[in-house]
Each structure stands twice: as structure tokens, then as C-alpha cells.
């Protein structure tokens, strides 16, 4: 792709971007949200038409008018949200729209469709029968089915957009191995990811975009994280971790015997200090989010015991935990954190609405003031408090979620994957906010699957494995190796128990 330009009304999304990829090469495409990665890939995939520039394959200029053109040219696009039909089986998904049929009634040739699908699964190491319905497969396996579909289309170039965002660590590793294998088989891959650690493993080159322009390209050897980040944001970002000198009160929050529906035979207990950020690491599926949800009462009354500042709390519903100042910023921002069809003002005041009433009626001016305060202190980029949340970018949406709780003086703030899908600049701001909040005397519990984030932000790290805490690491012992050991259920000498009995 050479000199690609794309304008949307009022904004230049791409301004002369070039990208080249050789046969059997893996190119990582990185950049902040809004840098133009998706637009560029959508042009390659036939979703958008470029305003300028040209696309060449094997040296010949070609034009891609729609998705079918792209497919015919051997370009396959694996979106972040999987496009699979979970009510159909593997073979039907692989050959959707291209089923082998018996004429004249176009009945599906069931034997052939399964026989044809099998080799692709084998090539990808997906060891399931071709007649398995997709809703019985894990997300990672469903993703492999999509890749199988791409291969069955004879794809020479596969675009993967944030393929690992919902995979566990071992699944991620397997996917990265697969990317290398496909490369060795001569398939070219463009790989978009916010998780820079993954790129070390597989990328032959890294192409960095910033504000719709090429910001730089790095070879495998040159591509250090600091360098990539500085190219993405155009400035050096040092490690996010700042040792805080805020006074800590150990045992301020004591949690005992949380038993989530996911692991009914395990319980979680831990202590956390006032003023600290306690990270929760672990593989996806370790039960961390479920623990948090149970803790704030979303599963109804349970046998869990929570002491906050020496007082025993009775938490039977989210209403109870909220009234004690325990707030959860859930993982699924748009599904659980926000009512995206409502304005910023309405979202920010939703949990504290009764405070804005006089004689039972809501006073919008007071609501507005609170919303404006949060917008300015969180630096939410928006025309105003009446803007619908659906129109904000991911990072700004997350700030609104934070804002609705910050308006209510949190004592315990649980953040589940607080920066997923958020660009580097907004990430740094959210980390700064978390640190400030801790310094003001709140307890921060941060669940994160992003190893870098855990290491950068946490004062201590509790590691979970299959529904229980396998150990807590103090700051000096927080290393990637130690966390991984605990996350897979092994023991580490430096690890402490999660609470003092």
C-alpha cells in the first residue's frame, strides 16, 4: 500500500500512509486508538475506499471495491469481535456461503463439507470434530475456526485485529505459535495489538502509525517496548510505576470466604491496605472477575465476610456495597459499566441519583455541575455533559465510568481490566488517577490480564489460579516469572499468604 489517504468529513483519517508486507512475513501494526490502524485495514479489506494512493499485489496495482474483491485477492480479515455463528457446527462455519451442494435442490453435501473442513482444522491443530457446534467451543477455538475459514479461502494475507484481547495466556501463546507456523507456510500476516509483549514473539517488523501518518518502522531487533511507545505517542514514557509515600494501613480491608458461582468449591480471602493498589493477576478464567462480582453483591447474599476499617459489612446486593463506598468498574464497559444510550450527565449521576433530588424531583442543574466537575477533573474529551456516551471513544467512556464512582468518594475501588482497548495516553492518565485515589486513602483492587500493567501499577500482586489465590507478591518480588509460576498453580518461595490469620 502506497500513499494511502482517507478523509472522513471533517477529519483526515489517513494521510499518505504506506505499508508493505512480503510473502510469509508478519508485520505488526501498532498505534494509539484513532491512529488510523483500523481505517487502513478496512481499506485493505474492502470495507472503505481510499481517497488517494494505490494498492499493489505482486507489483501490480489493484483496486478493492468491496469485501468480496478482497477475498478473491486472498485477503482475509479476522475482526476483534468474532464473526461466527455459534448455533452452527464447525464445518458449516468454515464453508458458510460456499457449502458443497447436490444439485438441483441445493441440498448440502454433508459428507463432503465435513471431509473438506477436517484438513484445515488439522493444519491449525484444532482437535475437535467438525460437527461440534461453535457454542461448545472456547473463544480461542472459535477464533481458530475463523482462521480455518480464511485458509479455506486460500488467503495469502490474513489481517488479525486484536486477536488476543479475550484469550487466556496459554491460548495467546498457542495463537502466536500458530502465527509463526502460518508464516513459515508462506502466509503473510498483519497483526494489530495493544499488547506490545506479544509482538516480540512473532513480528518480523513493526509499523507504527500516529495521527494517520507513518510514525516509523522497526525491525524485529530494534523493536523495544520503550521505542514503540515513544513512536506511538511521540514522546518517551518512562515506567508507569511510582512508589507512593502515602501512609498505608494494613488490614483496612479484610475479605474472607468469597465463593463465586464459577468455583463453588473454592473460597477467596485477602487483606488489603488503605492507600495501596493491590493487583490481581492470573490467567483469564482464574475467577478474578467473578470474585469481584460476588464481593460487591451481584450474585446476591453469600457467605462472604467483608470488614472495612474494622466494621463488618453486610453485603446482600450491589446497593449495599455501594452504600459502603465499595465500587466496581466492570470489565465490560459498554455492557455493564455504562448506559451508552444516555448522556454523560445521566451516567455519572446514575448510582447517586437520590442525592440530586429535592422533593422527589431531580435537579438537573446540580447534576450538570457534578458531571462538569468530573469531566474537567478527568479530562474527558467531549463537547459537553449532554453528549451521549455512545459517541465517546473507549478511553473517554472508561473515564465516565470512573467519574460516576469518583463523584461518590470511593473507599474501595475494584477495577476490572481498567484499560482494555484503551490507547496509551489514556492508560497513563487512568494509572495516575488510580494512584491519586490510593493516596487519598482508598483501597484499589485492580484485576488485569495485562502483565505489563500489573507490574507497572500494583504495590502488591495477588495471583489467582482456578478460583483461589495462590500467593501474594510484595513489590520487590513482582517479576513476570514469579507471577506466571503462581498463575499456573505452582508455588513460589517469595510468595506470601493473602492474609494474616
Amino acid at each position, binding site marked *: 500500500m502506497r500513499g494511502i489517504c482517507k478523509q472522513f468529513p471533517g*477529519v483526515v483519517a489517513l494521510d499518505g500512509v504506506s505499508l508493505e508486507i512480503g510473502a510469509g512475513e508478519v508485520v505488526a501494526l501498532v498505534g494509539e486508538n484513532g491512529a488510523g490502524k483500523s481505517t487502513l485495514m478496512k481499506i485493505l479489506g474492502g470495507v472503505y475506499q481510499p481517497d488517494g494512493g494505490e494498492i499493489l499485489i505482486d507489483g501490480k496495482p489493484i483496486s478493492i471495491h468491496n469485501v468480496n474483491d478482497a477475498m478473491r485477492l486472498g485477503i482475509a480479515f479476522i475482526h476483534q469481535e468474532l464473526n461466527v455463528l455459534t448455533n452452527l457446527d464447525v464445518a458449516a462455519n468454515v464453508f458458510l456461503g460456499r457449502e458443497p451442494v447436490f444439485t438441483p435442490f441445493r441440498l448440502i453435501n454433508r459428507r463432503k463439507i465435513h471431509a473438506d473442513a477436517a484438513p484445515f482444522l488439522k493444519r491449525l491443530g484444532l482437535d475437535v470434530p467438525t460437527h461440534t457446534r461453535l457454542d461448545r467451543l472456547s473463544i480461542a477455538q472459535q477464533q481458530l475456526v475463523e482462521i480455518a475459514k480464511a485458509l479455506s479461502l486460500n488467503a495469502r494475507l490474513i489481517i488479525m485485529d486484536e486477536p488476543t484481547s479475550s484469550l487466556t495466556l496459554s491460548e495467546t501463546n498457542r495463537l502466536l505459535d500458530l502465527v509463526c507456523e502460518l508464516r513459515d507456510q508462506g502466509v503473510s500476516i498483519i497483526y494489530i495489538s495493544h499488547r506490545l509483549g506479544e509482538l516480540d514473539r512473532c513480528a518480523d517488523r513493526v509499523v507504527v502509525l500516529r495521527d494517520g501518518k507513518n510514525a516509523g518502522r522497526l525491525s524485529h531487533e530494534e523493536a523495544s517496548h520503550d521505542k514503540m511507545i515513544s513512536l506511538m505517542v511521540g514522546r518517551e514514557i518512562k515506567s508507569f510505576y511510582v512508589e507512593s509515600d502515602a501512609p498505608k494501613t494494613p488490614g483496612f480491608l479484610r475479605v474472607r470466604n468469597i465463593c463465586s458461582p464459577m468455583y463453588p468449591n473454592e473460597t477467596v480471602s485477602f487483606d488489603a491496605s488503605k492507600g495501596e493498589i493491590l493487583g490481581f493477576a492470573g490467567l483469564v478464567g482464574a475467577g478474578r472477575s467473578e470474585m469481584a462480582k460476588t464481593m460487591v453483591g*451481584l450474585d446476591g447474599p453469600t457467605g462472604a465476610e467483608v470488614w472495612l476499617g474494622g466494621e463488618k459489612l453486610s453485603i446482600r446486593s*450491589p446497593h449495599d456495597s455501594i452504600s459502603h463506598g465499595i465500587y466496581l468498574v466492570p470489565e465490560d464497559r459498554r455492557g455493564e459499566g*455504562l448506559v451508552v444510550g444516555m448522556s454523560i450527565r445521566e451516567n455519572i449521576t*446514575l448510582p447517586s441519583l437520590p442525592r440530586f433530588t429535592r422533593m422527589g*424531583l*431531580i435537579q438537573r442543574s446540580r447534576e450538570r455541575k457534578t458531571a462538569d466537575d468530573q469531566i474537567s477533573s478527568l479530562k474527558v474529551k467531549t463537547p459537553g455533559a449532554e453528549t451521549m456516551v455512545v459517541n465517546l471513544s473507549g478511553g473517554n467512556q472508561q473515564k465516565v465510568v470512573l467519574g460516576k464512582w469518583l463523584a461518590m468518594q470511593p473507599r474501595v475501588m475494584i477495577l476490572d481490566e481498567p484499560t482494555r482497548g484503551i490507547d496509551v495516553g489514556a492508560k497513563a492518565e487512568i494509572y495516575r488517577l488510580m494512584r491519586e485515589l490510593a493516596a487519598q486513602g482508598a483501597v484499589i483492587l485492580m484485576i488485569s490480564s495485562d502483565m505489563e500493567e500489573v507490574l507497572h501499577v500494583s504495590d502488591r500482586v495477588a495471583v489467582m489460579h482456578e478460583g483461589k489465590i495462590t500467593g501474594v507478591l510484595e513489590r520487590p518480588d513482582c517479576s513476570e516469572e514469579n507471577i506466571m509460576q503462581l498463575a499456573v498453580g505452582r508455588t513460589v518461595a517469595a510468595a506470601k499468604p493473602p492474609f494474616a490469620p
Partner: protein
Amino acid sequence: MKKDLGIFGLLVALCLITASQNHNFFSATNLTNLSNVIGLFGIFGIGSGLVIIAGGIDLSIGSMIALVGVLLPMALRDWHWSWPLAVAFVLAVPMFLGWCHGWLVTRLNIQPFIVTLCGLLIYRGMARTITNDTTEGFGDSQAQGFGTLDRLADGKLFGLPMPFVILIIISIVMWFVLHRSVYGRYLLAVGRNENATRFSGINTRQVISSTYIVAGLLTGISGILFAFWTRSISPANHGTFWETYGIAAAVLGGCSLRGGEGSIIGIVIGTAVLQVLQNLVNLLGIRSPRNYVVMGVVVLAGAIFDEVLRRHSAKKLARAQK
């Protein structure tokens, strides 16, 4: 707000068209009749709309009206209850049924469509069973001691039919409830995203259940007024299909069946549009079998127009953002 103006424009246009076709439209008799039926249908329309705003639907309204319609004369005439007691009773019954709907929907997670569809069948059957399928009436209300109720339900205030007056009062109250109270905000939030609302510490089950109870109450009030309007309540026909008027009025008035959207003013004007349309159809002498076709087409056109408008504004927004 924009939507309310749009539907109001449609109402004005329909009125003018009707008036141009038949100069009787603006006659006092016609306007009184019209405001009377707008009141009757508008009251339960608001209930229907609230359920829709919270993301549900109530199909049982017509049958509930029939049930209220037969219970009221029985209580007054056969059981000789005092009229306040009888009114309390026939309001309590639909509220209880609404509570049952809410319980089934929020506790057992049964789809509102199924729950209220079963209600539609059951309450109709109950109305016919308890009356042995015979038509009920009130007889002489004055002689039997409920003349006051009769005047409250079927009388006039400042020349306006009582149902219309009651609709105005209920609309004003419900406007504050939906657009200015905490409960109303919760309704809109639950309709848009129940999960996120629950995560914000709001008892979403209670909020959703309550809409069915309020719908029950408003249906009960409508039911009483309808009973005194028709004066002869045939359990097999009274109220059939009326739930669709409530749903159609709510949708015309800007409520989205996806939930989370709608306004009281919209619902009331939506009801008015339907009734003026009915009036137009009658005045033009279109025979009643075709009546439903006209109504269906107009509501469908409204929905299509709304969707076109939505896409247009979405595009405009996207353009403004880029």
C-alpha cells in the same frame, strides 16, 4: 422532544385533513366524543408505554379491561358493595395481576411477551367464566347508590368529558414521574441497559416489576371508565385488541420496543393520532372492516419514518464527529 413535535405535526395534519373532508369534525359533539375516547385509550396507553420504556411489553391490557368491566357491575349491583370499595377492588385486581407479570418476568426470567400473552388468554377466559358469558350492565346507578361514581366516570367537568380530564391529570403526574423523578430515570436506564443499571446499585427487578403494576393500575382506571362509557359489557368482545392501541400509541409516540426511549407527551399525542384517524375513517365512511388496515398502515408508516429519521441523524452525527 423533536419526536414529540414530529408526532404533533402529524396530529395537526390529520385533524386538518379530516376537517377538510368533513366539516363535522370541529363540531362540539365530535370533539367531545373524540376527547372522550382519547381519554379512555390514553390512560392505559401510558401504562403500556411505561412497560415498553422499561424494555417489556404488555399484551394483556384488553383482557384486563374486560375483567374489570365485568367485575365492577358485579360488585356494585350483585354484591351491593359501596362504590369506593368496588373501585378499590377493581383497581387492586389488575394491579395484583401486574405484580404477577412482574414477578414472572423478573424472578423466573420468562419473556414479557409470553407472560402477558398468557394473561391475555387467561383474563379473557376468566371474564367469560365468571359471567357465564352473559353481558353485564349497571342498571340505574342513582337508585343503586353509585351515582357519584357514574358522574365521576362518565360526567363532564368544565364541558370536558371526565375520561379526558382524568387523562390530563394522569399525564401531568406521570410526566413528572418519568421525566423528573429518580424512578423515571431508573426506568429509562433499565430499558436501555439493565445490566449496567444493576451494576450501579439499582434494584432493576423492582423497577421492572413496578411498571407492570403501574400498567395494571392505569388499565384498571381505564377499565372503570370504559365500563361506564359502554354500559353494557360483553365479556367476549369488550376490550378485544385494545392492547394493540396502547402499543401502537406508544410506538407512534416515540417509545422504542428496544426499551429506554419514550415520553408521556408522545404517548398521549400518539393516542390522539390513532383516535383522530379512527374518526377520519368513520367520517369518510370507510367501512369498519378496512378500519384496521388503515390503522396498521399508518402505524407502520410512522415506524418506518422514525427509522429513516434515526438513520439520517446518525449519519449527521457521524459526519459531525469525523
